[in-house]
């Protein structure tokens, strides 16, 4: 996926590229859901439909050498960070060609070479490591930034508070991207957080906090650029409070008994980031159709690639435990 030429500004063609990538992630996850329901994918899966603009906006703003840590809802981040759809799909099928070679699965997607330090199935689990990775960049004088993705639910766990405190105290080059989709699994924000403005949590640690509309990829990109520049420039970490929406359940198959049908329909109708960008770019149906069929073909190809992948041998389970 081509990098945006001029990092500070976005041309229409940049945004069309963002659109393509967001649509690719959407179609990828829809395919994942379909194949999971068909019984082809082991384990269980969380998709981030509705949150594509966060993954693309942030990852497009990164420079070579920057790293991310992701969450259990990691497909979008992983694709946006450069892992190919083939490698990601192969991982979901448990194949050796997968980005974690069949050892990780959906919640443990790694691509170290491309700067993905791993998705984490423990909520908040990756925040301390990003703080430490950023510390290592600082100690070595490398102009790199560590980016942690996490949700609003993670802001209640100790690792979040300890990491933000430590990162700000040590002024490490890190950006904490809080994808506030207003749900911690099935629990709404108002039931898990006594405050409305999540950025206050970062402010409490003296950290620069920026609020951004997570359904507007251009806004996310620009906010991420500024945050990354701030961190890279040695001015300390930044907290990005990204307001976003999960247009699906917590996991594939989640009946969402905790969510009203009206709210869900209303949110879907008004908060689709891909639809927003399409409108903004005034794209014709034909234009969209052309991109759509292209990305669908990529996704179909990924399924084929994955199905034809190599199964690990059972005894491979005993490899890679120690270096």
């Amino acid at each position: 996926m081509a990098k945006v030429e001029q990092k500070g500004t976005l041309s229409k063609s940049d945004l069309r590229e963002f659109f393509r990538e967001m649509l690719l992630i959407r179609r990828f996850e829809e395919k994942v859901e379909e194949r999971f329901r068909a019984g082809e994918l082991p384990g269980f899966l969380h998709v981030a439909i509705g949150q594509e603009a966060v993954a693309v906006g942030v990852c497009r703003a990164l420079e070579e050498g920057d790293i991310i840590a992701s969450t259990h809802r990691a497909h979008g981040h992983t694709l946006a960070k450069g892992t190919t759809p083939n490698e990601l799909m192969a991982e979901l099928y448990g194949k050796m060609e997968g980005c974690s070679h069949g050892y990780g699965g959906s919640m443990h997607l790694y691509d170290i070479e491309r700067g993905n330090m791993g998705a984490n199935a423990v909520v908040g689990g990756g925040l301390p490591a990003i703080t430490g990775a950023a510390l290592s960049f600082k100690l070595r004088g490398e102009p790199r930034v560590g980016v942690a993705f996490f949700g609003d639910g993670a802001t209640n766990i100790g690792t979040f508070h300890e990491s933000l405190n430590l990162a700000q105290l040590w002024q490490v080059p890190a950006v904490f991207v809080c994808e506030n989709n207003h749900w911690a699994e099935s629990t709404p924000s108002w039931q898990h957080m006594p405050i409305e403005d999540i950025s206050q949590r970062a402010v409490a640690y003296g950290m620069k906090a920026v609020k951004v509309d997570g359904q507007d990829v251009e806004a996310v990109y620009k906010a991420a650029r500024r945050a990354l520049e701030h961190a890279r420039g040695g001015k300390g970490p930044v907290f990005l409070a990204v307001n976003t929406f999960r247009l699906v359940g917590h996991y594939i198959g989640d009946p969402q008994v905790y969510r009203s049908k009206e709210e869900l329909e209303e949110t879907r109708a008004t908060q689709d980031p891909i639809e927003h960008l399409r409108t903004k770019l005034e794209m014709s149906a034909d234009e969209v159709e052309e991109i759509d069929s292209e990305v669908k073909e990529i996704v179909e190809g990924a399924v084929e690639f994955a199905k034809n992948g190599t199964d690990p041998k059972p005894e491979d389970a005993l490899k890679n435990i120690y270096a």
Partner: protein
Amino acid sequence: MPELSYREAVRDALSRAMRDDEDVFIMGEDIAEMGGSMGVTQGLVDEFGPERVRNTPISEMALAGAAIGAAMQGMRPVAEIMYEDFLTLATEQIVNQAAKHRYMSGGQVTVPVTFRTQGGAGWSPGAQHAQQLESWFVHIPGLKVVFASTPTDVRGLLWSSIYDDNPVVFFEHRTLYGIKEDVPDELEPIPLGQARTHRRGEDVTVIATGRLVHEALAAANEAEQEGISVEVVDPRTLLPLDEEALISSVKKTNRCVVAHEAVVRGGFGAEVAAVIQYSAFDWLDAPIERVGAKFSPLPFAPVMEEFVVPHAGDVLNAIRRTVGRTDGN
């Protein structure tokens, strides 16, 4: 040959590694100006500065996790967890993160981090500042676990732990910090996974860790007076375990006592006993004896603490039982 205390030996390994290698740095609570709650890191901030001798907030999750993140970037951090009891706070990071990143990534990354910690009873700290939790970590694939009992060992093993490409949980024993020993001028790395035979004997093998190595040696001297020849072996690395050394010793003596300060139930000695009985069953002339703390949190009052944790007398009694003698006869 210089004489070093166990404390100085730990410090020596840390400072030599930091002198040799910019990638090594240490972090923990009160480790800089104060020199650590046990005085282990005294003076290091003067030599290496606050960037490499980092005082942290009281945040075990973050300091353990930050060490993991730096290690994943190729540095070799040594994180000090002030008391073993506080490992409980860092356990998510050690067990779910450090131990598994390599595995979950299919071998893409190494996590060369060392978690130093210390514990041990004998000074009435009560139930939250002295327990011995090493067996918890021996249960975790992906970790290495070290428990050193002498100045020479602690120095050589810490060096090897820092330079191991895997996460190592490194246990020190509080009551050993003051013991002294002549050590070689040059630091000799001790490979992880290699046991040490402290004393040769013919009748009984005592496999002991940490403080109990010294209690076992005292018990062995007593037993000698009674005509029982005791071999004392310290595995030093609990994971990976030098099974061969332990098995061959027991095949020679035909009797085995395992001894540690931790609670007996589910303790490291249970694993050792299982290994021995499986591999040396036909050689055993007596049931394997286990020596450890009674099944109790550590009490405060000295008389109760003394009662709960094992001493040389407990090891001696176990030795006697393996040769069919009753206690005290």
